């Protein structure tokens, strides 16, 4: 018994001494090499989505003077932009290869708001105050003429605008976050017609929408503007009330659509493949057959609302681009193909850059992602920089 007790004591104090010795060693000076796992899946995914070319153009002049811009059709390398100069706003067409201004048109010397350039640069829409009224004006730069599309009392309503992919139709609607949400509102399609002889005209189709008190209003026309998906929703106290419609301007009919989401959902794009939406959780879904029985397919998982990716979908609905913040100063654009209503592999990183270079992203002609921002030069100037990712 005594021997056993002695052994236990020796083991105990030995353990203590060992612990003390062990802790005395510490980390100290040492080198350690760690090998990273191979990049097998990523290599396979990158094979599925490749960029053909990256083009960058850094324009002259200060970045803060550029109000908005758009890239021309593929192959033209033309840049259309509205910039503010000393005398007022000027609309310019720039050949980026030669770095020359092809044309420059004076737009207005008043303060402009809600400026939007149609894809292809054929039209420029903007709001301007005229006395007590606000005017929605569309400028046709090729003819140098302009039309007032709409007048309304200032402070009554705020409008949002979006151009169709072909750049000939402008869609407008009243925002729900201002004014009386129970008041009737309109979704309007302005179809531009330009004839070298008859000049510049337009056709209007307007839908009268009932005010349901819902704040969030989304309007997504399809690529050719023949169908307009509209969603109105209100999320209060954990419950979501929403309405979905499909407006058909050609026949001036309105179809009520069945609901597809139990959560607040933000429509991204209405395409031939279906409706792309991002729910509050950040998950991105494709809704097919929205007119009959919606089929909901999850494409990308979000981050529960924290640093969710911003999604951009091409008109055909077969390419999706995601903009994510890598850290507080870097962003990354990745892309993924969509086939048969599903994502084909994981998103592939396409481009990384500093946050200054990203003000706006747009998809041009289903072949390029264009985004522009600022570039800080060594002479302490900020210039606007346009980056084109061709795929």
């Amino acid at each position: 018994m005594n021997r056993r007790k002695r052994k236990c004591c020796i083991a105990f104090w030995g353990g203590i001494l060992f612990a003390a010795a062990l802790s005395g060693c510490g980390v100290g000076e040492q080198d350690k090499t760690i090998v990273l796992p191979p990049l097998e899946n990523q290599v396979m995914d990158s094979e599925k989505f490749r960029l053909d070319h990256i083009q960058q153009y850094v324009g002259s002049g200060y970045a803060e003077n550029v109000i908005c811009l758009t890239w021309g059709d593929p192959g033209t390398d033309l840049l259309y932009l509205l910039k503010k100069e000393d005398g007022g706003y000027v609309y310019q067409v720039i050949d980026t290869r030669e770095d020359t201004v092809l044309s420059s048109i004076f737009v207005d010397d008043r303060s402009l708001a809600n400026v939007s350039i149609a894809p292809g640069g054929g039209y420029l829409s903007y709001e301007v105050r005229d006395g007590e009224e606000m005017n929605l004006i569309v400028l046709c730069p090729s003819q140098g003429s302009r039309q007032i599309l709409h007048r309304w009392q200032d402070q009554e309503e705020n409008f949002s605008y979006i151009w169709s992919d072909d750049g000939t139709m402008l869609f407008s609607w009243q925002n729900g976050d201002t004014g009386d949400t129970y008041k009737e509102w309109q979704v309007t399609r302005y179809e531009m017609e330009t004839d070298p002889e008859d000049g510049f005209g337009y056709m209007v189709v307007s839908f009268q929408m009932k005010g349901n008190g819902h704040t969030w209003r989304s309007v997504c026309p399809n690529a050719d503007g023949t169908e307009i998906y509209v969603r109105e929703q209100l999320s209060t106290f954990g419950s979501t009330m929403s309405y979905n419609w499909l407006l058909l301007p050609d026949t001036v009919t309105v179809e009520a659509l069945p609901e597809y989401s139990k959560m607040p959902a933000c429509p991204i794009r209405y395409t031939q493949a279906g409706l792309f939406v991002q729910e509050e959780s950040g998950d991105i879904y494709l809704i097919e057959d929205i007119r009959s029985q919606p089929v909901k397919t999850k494409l990308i998982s979000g981050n529960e609302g924290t640093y969710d990716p911003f999604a951009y979908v091409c008109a055909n609905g077969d390419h999706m681009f995601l903009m994510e913040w890598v850290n507080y100063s870097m962003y990354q654009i990745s892309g993924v193909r969509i086939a048969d209503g599903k994502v084909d592999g994981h998103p592939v990183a396409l481009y990384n850059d500093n946050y200054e270079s990203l003000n706006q992203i747009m998809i041009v002609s289903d072949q390029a992602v264009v985004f522009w921002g600022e570039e800080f030069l060594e002479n302490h100037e900020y210039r606007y920089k346009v980056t084109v990712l061709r795929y």
Partner: protein
Amino acid sequence: MHRKKRSFFHSILFRISLWILLPGIAGMLLVAYFVGIQMQYQIEKQITEEMQRVRDNSLLYVQQTLLLEDSRMNAVSFKLYKNEIEKQLNNAGYREVLLCSPEGTLLAGDAKDFELRKEQEDFIRAREQESAFLVRYGNGGQCEVYFSMPVNLNGQFIGIISSFFDYGELYRGQSDTIQRMVWITVAVFTLICLIIWFTVYRILLPIRRLSQAASEISSHLADGRQGSMILNKLRLLGRKDEIGELCSNYREMLQVTEEQFQKIRDDKDRILTLWSSRQEFYNNVTHELKTPLTTISGYAQLMEKNGPGDEELFYIGTGHILKESTRLHRMVVQLLELQDKANTEDARRLNLSEIVENVTETMKIKANRYDNELTLKGTKECLPVVGKEDKIRQVLINVIDNAIKYGEPGKPIHIQLTRKDGQVQVTVSNQGQGIRKDELETIFEPFYRADKGLSREMGSSGLGLSIAARIMEEHQGHIKAASIPGKETIFTICFPTVDQNE
């Protein structure tokens, strides 16, 4: 017995301190060590994740640089646009960037850095088309990371990128946090140890006091003084916890011990007294037996010497021999009576008045011989007692006989029966020289004689009162004497009363 001095190293306090403090310190050291290991693991895990992102980003930077230059993704382009790639990587925050060919020759970057890094394992791994990083921990919280990766684009190994990242701030930050945690733990542990130490000290304090008290008490045991009062000084008896209970039990134990000690002392005294009485008794017996035997023997020898012719001696001698042998016989009988164990099983109810009256009547003859008069009072009432009549008669005869023999001739002897204090008393009083006060206590002892010469002359054996006292003791009564020397002596015989109806 002296108190043993206890060593601190053998105390419970020391052992508890040892068993808590040392394992606690060892535990803290171990925890600190393993937390350090865990911290290192977490940092390496974090660096690994970041290096994976660096690898992805690096490939992306090379790819977008080559795409911007509208170049093909091959080793030649990598070499051709090395400066643009290096600039892109530097803009992205990379430090000490080295661009190398797949064969490991330097394309861009500092040659000194290259010489230092080309033998590092991460660079060697990169040449084998594996991405790896080397973490270098230094004293003073340095944590340097050298990352090397192969550039594989479109399935081609087109070059190597190596760069440096400083994680010292992260490492030091986490080290500081752990150090603070360890110090806080040490402080909390020290506080807990102090509280435990103090608590144990407080718990053990009464036990130590009890131990001291026991030690002091044991030192007094030899003197026969237990000193249970020492316990009262400890101020522990009021406690209601286990210590108080222990102390209370300990005090009770001491009290029992004290009582037992007292009993042993009394028994010892009694035994000594008994031994002394016995010795005296035997001395008296031998002396009393030797005296008549000497007389008998002396006269027998003288008669043998003178022969039958000495008629006068014959008569005187036979008279003495007869007298002494009678006395000897009576003494032996009385000694047997004294030793005889009383048998009160056949005791019966008796009327004491009748017995006293009868005995008085019998003793009147002897009283007349001594010119004394016996007066009797109190016999009209029936006074029942339980006992053996012959024994009671013997007591009365002995006491009255003594009163006659030692009373002054011509003076009356009063015998009186009374019922007093629940007892039946017979008092026998005479007038004479009396008994001294210091002798009153010893007159009931065997062979005691107040006046030895007179007593022996009167044929007394010195056993009468002893036998009377013994008989009264057997009858649950007692006998006592009171005397005024030169005046009066009163013997009182007390019997327990018996209910008239019993």
